[in-house]
């Protein structure tokens, strides 16, 4: 204990006093670390919130269900419920029919209406209204006996200012209908599903409202205890062809896995800010250690062991880590609010629908954030701490602080950098682990680290080659600045390394996002072509489970001859655990107006077989997620029918939440026996007319004819493109924020480094003033130093960014999301942003230039 007290006192004298003397440096580094830690933690907490919301919703909907009876790509006949209920292994078999619906006339997002039998469901799912238990009995009884009655969650009721006994008009593709609100659900059990935006209805009411008499989405089973494998086999035998028995956790597991993989992806991205912050810590601790060589030497001569010195310097890293993390708390608490919205929206677009209504502070996440931050800082302080142990006691006799001698390890570190860059290539070829592109991320890490290691070499090279040129541009100050950069050594290189990291990330993401956006735009134009696209309202929410009512189909069939209606059927299926959609469309007609972005396959050869249903086209995402390749068989079951055809081509497709399989409509209808339309694309045959106006007119006509009785989504091709790109931008909002934060931290790095360099040379600079240099010349010299440093960082970052973008597009995106894009560099964005970053970095250098001649040269020289 005494030793610890002594160590703490020593720490105070040795480190904290120094930090207090140069508090602004410390504050800048702490701010950098705090931002990094805050971003890292808030991103993880935001994804946790989405994950919680998803798993909670899934668990609450599943309730105590052991097994689920479903029909892939369809619905289950209700007659099975009674047969299952009398099976000896079954405790209860309860039907479930759900749909996202809207309150008529409201612009707000749809809510989930759950239709079930309150009697059979009683042992599966819990819900409670605010009244007494007796009232509950009456309540569910009213739900059963009175058509068009619902119980709304309190949150939903409050949102629309609805109360029991109110009449509310709900809309579904089948009809618009009035409902009486029986009561409101307390926020517990089922009422928490979908972020509390739910309603309950009796199964009969639900069927009548949705026009799904005779069908249910699924039958949830609760089995008796000690059910054997034979019982399960017997249960399966009871099911008609096409109906399957599966665990309720499948969807949950898939969603859970996807969100966790996304969390890891984002965590790694947000880690960049911390990584950049690590450069700051290194820079500060190294400077602190270097500027106190004499103190260290005195300590050593007084008997201080190397271990003590090592711990003293290392504990500076610890201090920065702990305080930085503490500062991250207020920053994170602000950041997380914005992150939650962005992250949940992205997860909803990409993977599974989540509705986050709260944030949970997971102690493990807090601990993880603390440990990662502190570890990073300790790691950054390790090098300087090791170096400090090499200070000999005799240095205590030196009259002045001697600056550290640069070890001659420039060549080694450059070679190491080249080696790391070389290793990035094979690493990027490694397969993904559980949906996470471990190899890709490691490759990027190696690439960034390797490029950063090259910064010493590039600084020395620039400092050797450029000064003659610089002297022409900026005179002697520029020449001297260049020479200084050459000799400045490792600390400057570390700051440049931070800029390399942020710049590389910036360039890579700019290229990736631009490539992605351009490819998506092309895809929207080609594959999602259509002057008008029509589908049931909330079809996206309900995953196309509702088809167009006959009335609507009749209206579409009767449209004038100058329009071509292309109906399509879209069905959600699962390939093992992977969700995907099969889209059946008249491919021959479609190719008159649009096309597929074929990635693999010979279009000329495959077009005929695809049009006649002798093969399918699969999306890149589907192929990536399932591992299926061209030539392999695609198998799927639709009710009693099985589709078993070869995969003829792989196409680009960027629809969110899973892959897609394209097949010809007519053969699909014959095979499945299902002639319903999920929606339709409408084209004008005469392409010379004012398509926009014609589309608007046609849209108005369809709405007039049928839109009042059957809620439809009719969107023009242009609107759709805009909407998809809006979703795209929303999805990448988080990435952009992370990118900007990394740049901010890198900017801080430049400020710190230059300031440190100025301070380090304060005597030298003042001597120059004393021998005749003007303040302007000194500032100019520092300016040119900054220019060279930023140019070194930018150029290395630029090259690294190009490589990184390749890995992002062809490795990480493919492994994480299953898709790649056409590689396109956004030159204009780069050309604008690179000088902008240069300018920003130079502005970041301003504090250093202002600092130079704050005190009079005479005073400075006298003091030293």
């Amino acid at each position, binding site marked *: 204990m005494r030793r610890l007290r002594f160590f703490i006192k020593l720490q105070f004298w040795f480190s904290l006093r120094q930090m207090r003397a140069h508090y602004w440096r410390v504050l800048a580094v702490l701010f950098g670390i705090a931002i990094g830690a805050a971003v890292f933690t808030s991103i993880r907490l935001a994804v946790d919130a989405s994950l919680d919301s998803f798993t909670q919703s899934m668990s609450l909907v599943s309730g105590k269900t052991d097994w689920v009876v479903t029909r892939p790509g369809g619905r289950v006949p209700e007659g099975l*419920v009674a*047969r299952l209920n*009398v099976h000896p292994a079954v405790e209860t078999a309860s039907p479930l029919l759900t749909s996202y619906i809207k309150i008529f006339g409201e612009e707000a997002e749809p809510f989930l209406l759950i239709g079930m039998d309150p*009697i059979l469901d009683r042992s599966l799912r819990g819900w409670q209204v605010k009244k007494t238990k007796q009232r509950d*009995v009456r309540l569910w009884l009213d739900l059963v*006996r*009175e058509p068009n009655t619902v119980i709304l969650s309190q949150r939903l009721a409050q949102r629309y200012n609805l109360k029991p006994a109110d009449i509310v008009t709900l809309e579904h593709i089948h009809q618009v209908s009035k409902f009486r609100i029986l009561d409101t659900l307390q926020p517990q059990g089922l009422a928490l599903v979908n972020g509390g935006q739910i309603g309950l209805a009796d199964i009969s009411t639900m069927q*009548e409202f949705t026009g799904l008499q005779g069908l249910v989405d699924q039958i949830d089973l609760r089995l008796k205890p000690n059910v054997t494998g034979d019982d399960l086999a017997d249960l399966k035998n009871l099911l008609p062809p096409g109906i399957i028995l599966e665990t309720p956790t499948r969807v949950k597991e898939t969603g859970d896995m996807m969100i966790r993989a996304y969390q890891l992806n984002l965590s790694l991205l947000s880690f960049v800010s911390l990584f950049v912050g690590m450069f700051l810590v290194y820079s500060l601790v190294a400077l602190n250690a270097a500027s106190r060589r004499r103190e260290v030497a005195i300590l050593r001569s007084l008997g201080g062991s190397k271990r003590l010195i090592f711990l003293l310097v290392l504990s500076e890293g610890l201090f920065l880590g702990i305080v930085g993390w503490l500062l991250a708390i207020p920053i994170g608490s602000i950041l997380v609010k914005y992150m939650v919205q962005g992250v949940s929206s992205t997860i909803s677009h990409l993977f599974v629908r989540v509705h986050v209504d709260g944030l949970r502070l997971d102690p493990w996440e807090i601990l993880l954030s603390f440990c990662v931050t502190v570890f990073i800082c300790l790691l950054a302080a390790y090098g300087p701490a090791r170096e400090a142990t090499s200070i000999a006691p005799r240095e205590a006799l030196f009259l002045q602080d001697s600056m550290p001698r640069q070890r001659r390890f420039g060549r080694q570190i450059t070679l190491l950098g080249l080696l790391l860059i070389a290793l990035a290539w094979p690493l990027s070829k490694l397969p993904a682990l559980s949906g996470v592109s471990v190899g890709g991320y490691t490759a990027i890490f190696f690439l960034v680290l390797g490029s950063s290691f090259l910064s010493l070499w590039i600084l020395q090279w620039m400092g050797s080659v450029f000064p003659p040129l610089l002297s022409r541009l900026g005179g002697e100050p520029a020449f001297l600045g260049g020479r200084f950069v050459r000799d400045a050594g490792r600390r400057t290189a570390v700051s440049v390394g931070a800029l390399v990291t942020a710049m590389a990330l910036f360039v890579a993401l700019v290229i990736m996002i631009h490539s992605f956006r351009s490819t998506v735009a092309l895809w929207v134009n080609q594959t999602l072509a259509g002057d008008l696209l029509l589908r049931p309202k909330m079809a996206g929410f309900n995953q196309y489970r509702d088809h167009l009512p006959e009335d609507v189909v009749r209206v579409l069939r009767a449209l004038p001859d100058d329009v071509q209606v292309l109906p399509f059927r879209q069905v959600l299926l699962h390939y093992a655990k992977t969700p995907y959609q099969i889209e059946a469309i008249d491919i021959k007609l479609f190719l008159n107006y649009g096309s597929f972005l074929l990635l693999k396959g010979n279009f000329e050869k495959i077009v005929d077989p695809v049009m006649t249903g002798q093969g399918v086209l699969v999306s890149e995402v589907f192929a990536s997620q399932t591992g299926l390749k061209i030539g392999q068989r695609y198998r799927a079951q639709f009710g009693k029918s099985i589709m078993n055809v070869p995969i003829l081509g792989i196409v680009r497709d960027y629809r969110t939440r899973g892959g897609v399989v394209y097949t010809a409509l007519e053969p699909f209808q014959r095979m499945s026996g299902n002639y319903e339309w999920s929606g339709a694309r409408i084209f004008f045959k005469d392409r010379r007319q004012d398509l926009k106006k014609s589309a608007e007119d046609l849209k108005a006509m369809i709405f007039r004819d049928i839109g009042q009785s059957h809620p439809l989504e009719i969107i023009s091709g242009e609107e759709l493109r805009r909407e998809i790109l809006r979703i795209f931008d929303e999805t990448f909002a988080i990435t952009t924020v992370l990118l900007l934060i990394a740049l901010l931290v890198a900017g801080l790095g430049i400020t710190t480094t230059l300031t440190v360099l100025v301070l380090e040379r304060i005597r030298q600079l003042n001597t120059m003033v004393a021998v005749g240099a003007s303040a302007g010349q000194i500032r100019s010299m520092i300016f040119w130093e900054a220019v060279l440093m930023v140019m070194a960082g930018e150029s290395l970052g630029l090259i690294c960014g190009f490589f990184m973008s390749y890995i992002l597009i062809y490795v990480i995106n493919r492994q994480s999301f299953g898709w790649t894009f056409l590689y396109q560099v956004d030159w204009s964005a780069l050309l604008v942003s690179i000088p902008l970053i240069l300018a920003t970095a130079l502005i970041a250098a301003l504090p250093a230039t202002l600092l130079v001649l704050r005190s009079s040269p005479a005073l400075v020289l006298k003091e030293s």
Partner: protein
Amino acid sequence: MRRHPNSWPVFFFFILFLNPAILADSVYADEYLKVTGPCRFQFPRDHGAHPGYLVEWWYYTGNLSDPAGKRYGFQLTFFRTQISPPGLESRWPDPASAWRTTQLFLAHAAISDLDASRFYFDQQMARGALGLAGAEQQGDDTRIFLGTWSALIKSGKHFLKARADNFEINFTLVPAKPLVAHGNEGHSLKGIKPESASCYYSFTRLETSGTLKIKGKPVKVRGTAWMDHEFSTAPLEPDVTGWDWFSLQLENNTELMIYLLRTSQGGYSSASSGTFVLPSARTRHLSVKDIQADILDHWKSPHTNGVYPSRWRIQIHPLKLDLILEPNLADQELITPETTQVNYWEGSVSVKGKIADKEIKGVGYIEMTGYANPFNLLK
């Protein structure tokens, strides 16, 4: 070992719909059919359901024994309740869902393993739709079912089946006597007003045999059972706080049914009555004046703290019948705690006594309601 599954208001439901307060709350209260006079049963038609009446039940109870002499009691009851008045179907959406129904079915099954002092109970509920539950007639056969539980009434034979977690019954019941209609041609008054009545008939002696499985272990059993079938819309009146119902089978081939409606003022409602069935199946109606019921002992439920009568002395003066009724198992209380708040005792009893000074024995079943908590009719 007791089982109180599912915690749902099965019995309460039944009671709920008997509750005139609930009916008064409904704008449709007057639209249900009412029993106002002789029921003029026609069989097999009247074995079936009587939609339009608010509530109906088919009630089987019996005392059995296995070849080793071990004794058992059983109960299997099906309730039907109409949740919306007749004619309301016309307001249903068109086409209506097959789940839409006016009928709800509930069922209780209980086994009293008397020598092992164990009581098992289970309950079920489902809507009368889509083959989940119902009462259907085909030819002369009537089948009342709910899930795997069923009562099949054929000409001359009844078949009972029920599979619960701890027990399973598979019994064949053969009427040893023709059925008897209670009251005035089945019109059984339950109050002062004529419409406070039910249509009520019984098979008072059914020779029963079959297999009883307890915890998976099957035993062959034989004995006698009793069957009630009753339907009504408003059988009880406001001041009734509970009832005691007795079905006794005496060894001289006679049977006695009594229901005593307890009032809030104490004593029994004047509508309480009974039926004595002679060996020839001729019946004698008993009014409340003919019946003297004295409680000799009490049993306090460890589950609900309800205090139930546990020994009775029943005297039917005109018949010179003096009987002592003793439960074969003290704890035959059915509890549905979380939601129903209605607990009741329904169990096997032994009968000893005299008829016209001659010693006589018998077996029976008693149902007692409103002891563990207020019956809450019209309260």
